[in-house]
């Protein structure tokens, strides 16, 4: 009984993980992709907790999802700002 339940849990987790990964990787909109990536990281942390790796779950949640996500989000924000201003960007680009 528990084994079946566990197996179902395993399958559910893995499918979610793969689906999130696929969604993050195929999303053309940067911000959306990054948010999906963060969600992916959090689920990954959950999976690793399931695999008896709590240290890693913590690290993945904090670093892999959290900080990497924050870095990427900041980049999307900058990119957006850049595309807004960059329309009039001068070609010489030298200070």
């Amino acid at each position: 009984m528990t084994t079946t339940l566990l197996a179902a849990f395993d399958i559910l987790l893995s499918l979610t993980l793969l689906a999130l990964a696929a969604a993050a990787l195929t999303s053309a909109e940067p911000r959306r992709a990054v948010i999906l990536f963060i969600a992916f990281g959090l689920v990954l942390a959950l999976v690793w907790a399931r695999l008896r790796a709590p240290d890693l779950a913590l690290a993945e949640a904090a670093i892999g999802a959290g900080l990497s996500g924050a870095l990427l989000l900041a980049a999307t924000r900058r990119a957006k700002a850049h595309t807004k201003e960059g329309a009039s960007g001068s070609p010489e680009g030298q200070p």
Partner: protein
Amino acid sequence: MTRFVSLVLLPLGLAAIGVVLIWTFYLAATGEAGARLADLALARVPETGVSNPVTSVLLNYRAYDTLLELAVLLAALLGIWSLGPAAPGFQRGGEILQGMVDWFVPLLILAAGYMLWVGAYAPGGAFQAGALLGSAGVMLALAGYPSAGLPSERLLRLLSILGILAFCLVGLVLMVLGLGFLTYPPELAKWLILLIETGATLAIGVTLAAAYLGGRPDHTSEVDAP
């Protein structure tokens, strides 16, 4: 044509690779490797000065890996600094965010300290603690603090190398004492690891926060002008 390649040919090739990989992983996992290093590593955890096996590996068995890893972090930070000054700060966050930050940041710092201490016997350790510190910096940056709460450049530089410095000095002192590089005496292991981890936590924390800013701190000129 490129669409055909990227959506049909490439996936087909990757699928073939995937089949090979899964097959070989199956062979590898069902082969005769048995317990691998697990039993040996677990059996000797009591001698390492900490009881969390992962910390034993990270800070004792394979401490040298961790030293180099801190060097990777430093390289990334120095690389980021070499690419130019930080982007202009964000707009100051709203009142609510401000209020949250006032609460949250001290909490994160406390949690980091706890994480560092607890890493000796439970999940946690320098990396997780450092990550929490780094998150605190990110919070501050998001709330509009231009330097993400980071100290002056001179202190920032000191903090960012603290982990490597602690590692190297401990390693060299032990070497000179005749024990060998990074060979802790069992009775001191706990404290040496804590010392190194403290340095590493601070280094990781400030490095991640500084990396989030994405460039040299903008007070470079005033602090470090020749």
